[in-house]
């Protein structure tokens, strides 16, 4: 459970890094296509853009990972684990809400970008809880037989 917790937290943090990479890839693709005349903004939602597609998949995967992290935290007995998993989950939900809102109010996209960094940081901090927990349980285990 502990290592699952740690892996999930790391995956969330890694996911955020990938999301940043995908969205940059997506928009450089758009700019390049517009410059070369291959893209004319005709509302073809299904015009293929790998970056956008990956970002929207990531946008579903990261909240799912955060939810899994929260569920695992209930069972993992990591000191502060539930609290940090809940923070990660909350920040991930906020990230989705900001992303959704930004379609209507593009300026909210600024917050979506900044909150992404916050998500990576809290996911990393959550992952580090396992390290602390590891030492405390090790001590606890040595004490049990006595």
């Amino acid at each position: 459970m502990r290592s699952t917790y740690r892996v999930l937290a790391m995956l969330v943090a890694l996911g955020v890094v990938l999301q940043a990479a995908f969205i940059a890839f997506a928009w450089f693709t758009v700019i390049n296509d517009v410059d070369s005349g291959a893209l004319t903004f005709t509302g073809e939602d299904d015009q293929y853009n790998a970056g956008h597609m990956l970002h929207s998949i990531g946008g579903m995967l990261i909240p799912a990972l955060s939810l899994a992290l929260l569920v695992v935290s209930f069972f993992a007995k990591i000191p502060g684990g539930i609290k940090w998993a809940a923070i990660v989950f909350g920040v991930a939900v906020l990230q989705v809400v900001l992303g959704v809102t930004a379609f209507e109010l593009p300026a909210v996209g600024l917050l979506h970008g900044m909150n992404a960094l916050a998500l990576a940081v809290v996911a990393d901090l959550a992952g580090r809880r396992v390290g602390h927990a590891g030492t405390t349980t090790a001590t606890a285990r040595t004490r049990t037989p006595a």
Partner: protein
Amino acid sequence: MAGRGHWRLLAASAATLALVVPLGWLWWASLVPDTYSVMEMGVVDLGGGPATTGHDAHDGRDVSTLTGPRGGSPDVEVTLVARADAIDLGEGSAVGGYTLNGTSPGPELRLTRGDLVEVRLVNESVPDGVTLHWHGVDVPNAEDGVAGVTQNAVMVGERHVYRWVAEDAGTYWYHSHQVSHEQVRRGLFGTVVVQPRSATGGELDMVAAIHTYDGRRTVNGRVGESWREAAPGSPVRVRVVNTDNAPLHTWVAGTPYRVVAVDGYDLNRPTEVEDTSVLLTAGGRVDLEFTVPSDGTAVRVGTGVADTSLVVGPQGATPASTAEPEAELDLLDYGSPAPLGFTLDDVDRRFEYRIGRSPGFLDGMPGLWWTVNGEMFPDVPMYVVREGDLVVMTIRNDSGDVHPMHLHGHHAVVVSRDGEPATGSPLWVDSLNVADGETYEIAFVADNPGIWMDHCHNLPHATEGLLAHLMYEGVTTPYEVGGEVENSPE
């Protein structure tokens, strides 16, 4: 110790269920059966009118009986053969897609008002099946060509006959309404022109169908500059048809022009404009009238992109600039008012069509989906009307994106936008551009019984749940979405 561990496990399990069960329920509730009738999907909305009486099929009318004239010899008879084919776009470029009689756009149907038309649709090789919907022509319901609602998709090797009377002069188009988000984009469409009985003398009359194939914008299926020869001083009517999924700007450069018709309806006393563009929504049409300049120059009709346009003028002439005008014509105060044939004092039903966007599950898929009146597909409205009702519909868009809203089988007049009444010529539309943040009030008379789609003509949006149906009480359909023929209208 064991007791505490036990309680902890229980609490953890309870917390897990509290998180997972609501999500699972939302997912499960969003699932749509493989086969369903549009009559059973959605939320009944009576719009303040009386409730439906006698809903069972026995005293109702079946859409398959609401046909055009079955007898009588047609004035115009056409066979359209649909194929999966390569489309030649000119300038050495070609793209894979679908054709009708070997071309995309398919043949232009040029009719005279009052003609009885018979179109035989043959599907030679389009794997998903095809239909033909007569966009903007208010045909009887059985001829409307919506797979799973008014007919079954015409599968490979099958045929279907459409018969209808061209009752109103104007510019229209036709396209497949089976897997339409893919088939229209890839070429399964054509144009329809209905000329008045008393043809205007000597006017050069041409269609400019604007379509984007694989990212390349075309006029009548051709990339680049399309030329039409016309002598100096000759009067011209260009019927611009937007067959794409997004609105575009069109305009006439090099001479003043008038917008003489929108969506097949003539405008009342349109005035001349210059250096001004017109917003043409997806699925919409505008007829632009102008005179070729007498100084020997040519006129350019813009399509919104610099390298594709229609040039009209004498051979070898220098065409006008490709630059898009900055000014945009507002059709709500263009031309002069005229009687509508009804007043809005006596409205029978009032409907709301509020478009939003929200995260959730659509048929089990998580994502960001459109909502109608706050609900996601399949919980979209079924607007119930009785024949003869005067209907006012308020369309409000808070979804962050523009939506070209298309009502089948009817034309509606624009009453107001954002609370400001329309002051120009009556603007009768079948395709209305509703930008983000806008609210339109439209009015129409329910005079064409049937079950009609009322959806976004950015066709991928319709697949994402942006659709509703207008249903006449007592009308039923034997067709189903899904089913053995895999009807999939969007």
